[in-house]
């Protein structure tokens, strides 16, 4: 493993890499094999999830690695019970939370990165502190609070909760990103007559885009997969107004677990997330880079 650090980091200048290339061939093979092995380990459980979803009922507990017959009915019957509505509800919750985080975190992160003001340290500490608190640990409080608030629909409550608990990470990453962009760039633009907002929009935001995308995707995925608060707050909603995690959880019934539908639904719910990640895979590393040098 120790030898590996010698070749240049992947995304930096290509020239030194090319120089090493011919010499490193057998080593590259070893890396490739190891890399594929790791990838396989991390993907296998989800392959098993798909296989289980495709097992016909009478092969559910058979000991073959693969079923003798494939049964797609779990994927079709699912839609008869408001599963589509659940997906839409989850889109609203995750989308709403992401939007709210964007609106709230962006100015806070920008201002704390650019200005030194009284209470700045306190504010950053507050943000860091919220990262320590997780909804699972304070469910009793959340449940009682939102009972009292009595919002018109659990969707609103869940947007608020998901935004609140993902805010810290977004502020932290964005703050690091803005800090890494020299203020002089904006000032130069402002001398040319652009307003501060204009400079922010035209100069800083585009440069900070990887960080913004990372923060937003994290929020979206966090909200999309959130289960515990959703389970507590969205029970009074009709089936197609419950988020997808709650709907899936309902396949764990009083008398039996409906593995087929549970996993079929899980597959469908996970695909959009994997696709989202696929789009931004490179950016995640970039986005986290700024976060980690701080």
């Amino acid at each position, binding site marked *: 493993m120790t030898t590996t650090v*010698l070749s240049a980091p992947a995304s930096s200048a290509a020239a030194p890499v090319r120089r090493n290339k011919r010499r490193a061939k057998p080593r590259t093979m070893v890396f490739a094999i190891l*890399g594929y092995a790791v*990838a396989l380990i991390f993907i296998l459980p989800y392959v098993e999830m798909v296989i289980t979803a495709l097992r016909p009922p009478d092969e559910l507990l058979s000991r073959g690695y693969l079923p003798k017959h494939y049964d797609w009915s779990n994927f079709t019957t699912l839609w008869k019970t408001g599963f589509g509505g659940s997906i839409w509800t989850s889109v609203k919750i995750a989308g709403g939370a992401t939007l709210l985080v964007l609106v709230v975190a962006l100015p806070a992160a920008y201002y704390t990165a650019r200005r030194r003001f009284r209470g700045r340290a306190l*504010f950053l500490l507050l943000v860091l502190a919220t*990262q320590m608190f997780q909804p699972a640990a304070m469910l009793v409080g959340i449940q009682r609070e939102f009972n009292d608030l009595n919002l018109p629909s659990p969707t609103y409550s869940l947007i608020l909760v998901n935004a609140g608990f993902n805010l810290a990470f977004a502020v932290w990453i964005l703050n690091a990103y803005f800090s890494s962009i020299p203020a002089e760039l904006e000032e130069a633009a402002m001398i040319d007559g652009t307003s501060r907002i204009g400079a922010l929009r035209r100069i800083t935001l585009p440069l900070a885009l990887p960080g913004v995308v990372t923060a937003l995707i994290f929020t979206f995925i966090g909200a999309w*997969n959130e289960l515990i608060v959703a389970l507590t707050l969205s029970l009074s909603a009709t089936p197609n107004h419950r988020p997808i995690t709650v709907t899936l959880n309902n396949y764990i019934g009083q008398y039996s677990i409906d593995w087929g539908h549970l996993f079929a639904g899980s597959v469908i719910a996970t695909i959009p997330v994997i696709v989202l990640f696929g789009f931004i895979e490179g950016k995640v590393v970039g986005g*986290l880079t700024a976060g980690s040098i701080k």
Partner: protein
Amino acid sequence: MSSPVVLRRVGRAAQPLLWIGPAIALIAVVVLWPVVVMFRTSFQHISPDGYVLGSAGGKNYSNLFDEPDLSAVLIRTAVWVVVVVTVTMAISLAIAQLFNQRFPGRRVARWALIAPWAASVMMTALIFRRALDAGSGVINVLLHDMGIVKHFNSNQADWLGRQWSALVWMMVVAIFVSVPFSTYALLAGLQTIPSDVYEAARIDGASKWQIYRAITLPLLRPAFLVATLINVINVFNSFPIIWEMTRGAPAHETATTTVFMFQLKQSYIGESASLSVLNFGLVIIVVLLFLRATRWREQVS
């Protein structure tokens, strides 16, 4: 003092609020308020169906500390956090360095690593629960074919039914879902190390191991610490894995504090709230100790 001066001072004081006010409001409503409710609940006497029957004084806390299982649960939680976070960071460090190498198909391999991150933890826990089924779980089928598991439906095949084997498997799942984020954080850290630092070291005739010790590890430290801290908090509060795989059974033998809190919540809401408060205290202490040990302050400033 004339009013324009006051106004200007108020204006100057209010300017930060314009920018950070919304964030403070959101945190106050969603995070701080429930904490306050939680504290209040921990001093209330509440019936199992949620009626507040009056003040409990310190009764919830004394009941909590009288729970015969509490100390075992606390020790188990400590073991759980230390093992999961340590192994996660070790594996992530290895994978991050592997995935920082150039090899054909690297993008796809990195992408595959994202799966446990993209799927909800609940799903992953349920997949493993099924795969560990004593009669037909695919992991047992594999172990049986390898000759490790002798009989299906035996005590040996029933990994989730025994305290320690259940805990070990649940730790495996916890590590499995924690590695992707940690790896990506470390990968990001590795990429911030400028390549000319290595060039310079090599010109100075440093050995590979020396370079790794003297350059890579120290420069990776900030990323490593951030990832570790986030893991500590997440693993401490981790709930779905244990809940979906054993529900803390048998009895409370596989419960951590978060799970134990849920088990208590069914009958003793006040006592459960006081355990939440204790939980907070613990998280804060652990984080402060961590920050102090790593001299975080110097890192940030």
